[in-house]
């Protein structure tokens, strides 16, 4: 994802802003890290460049 996408993304639960944490870059692309809600603190993973913003109860329990 591009970092500019953060301008329009928000927490799916409370709709507050997200902050990028532990970002890994490939050129201009953010390929890893977390998007963390500035209000509730929920962390949403960026998986291979694509943010997983499913509500936590719908997030896959990754089987390895």
């Amino acid at each position: 994802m591009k970092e500019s996408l953060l301008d329009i993304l928000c927490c799916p639960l409370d709709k507050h802003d997200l902050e990028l944490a532990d970002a890994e870059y490939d050129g201009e692309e953010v390929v890893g890290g977390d998007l963390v809600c500035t209000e509730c603190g929920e962390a949403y993973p960026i998986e291979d460049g694509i943010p997983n913003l499913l509500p936590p109860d719908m997030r896959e329990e990754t089987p390895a």
Partner: protein
Amino acid sequence: MAGDQERAHSRDDVRDTYDRIATHFASTREYAWPEVESFVTSATDRESSGVGLDLGCGNCRHAELLAADCESVVGLDVSRGLIETGRTRALEREFDVELVQGDAASLPLADDAIDVAVYVATLHHLPTRAARRASLDELARVLSPDGRALVSAWSTAHDRFDATEGFDTTVEWTLPGGEPVDRFYHIYAPDEFEADLEDSNLELREWELSSGNCYATVAGDDRSRGR
């Protein structure tokens, strides 16, 4: 709450189903629907065709249409498997789309962020009326004041159904090896589709039946603001 639990599990099922059939499904979804083409053409003629959204983007065939006219496009889907087919299509055809995994009933998009949206053949996969209604209100929330969206769902008007009331069903998808995979659908009665849109925070502009699908052109609404 037990109800919420159930709903979450059912929406998980939709995600798992499409993860399973993603590659084969996407390979059979080559072309944009003509109803979507004409909506995108008219919606992007207007001044504010800044940010496009393909909600339930699948392989991004409609994101591709939006990309031709919008400054940027977001493709959102519940299924990671389908998103990967969208990423492949965008690379092969050289269009830009920002991909996001998310739930149509709890959108991770800011208020008023979207100028043009297509929400096509996705609403009918949400397993409860509450989730479907929530997703329409979410679309209203993220649409900018001048934003427009096209919403479509399968309807009882399609030849394969003889019901006149809306109903829940599963429709088989057959994988290349012959293995059937059930997919949840809520088949809308046309008047039920219209009523759900009227009751939502969306402003219904016009709607039509075409090829057994209900199509509605909608705008965001002031009722969704200032809460």
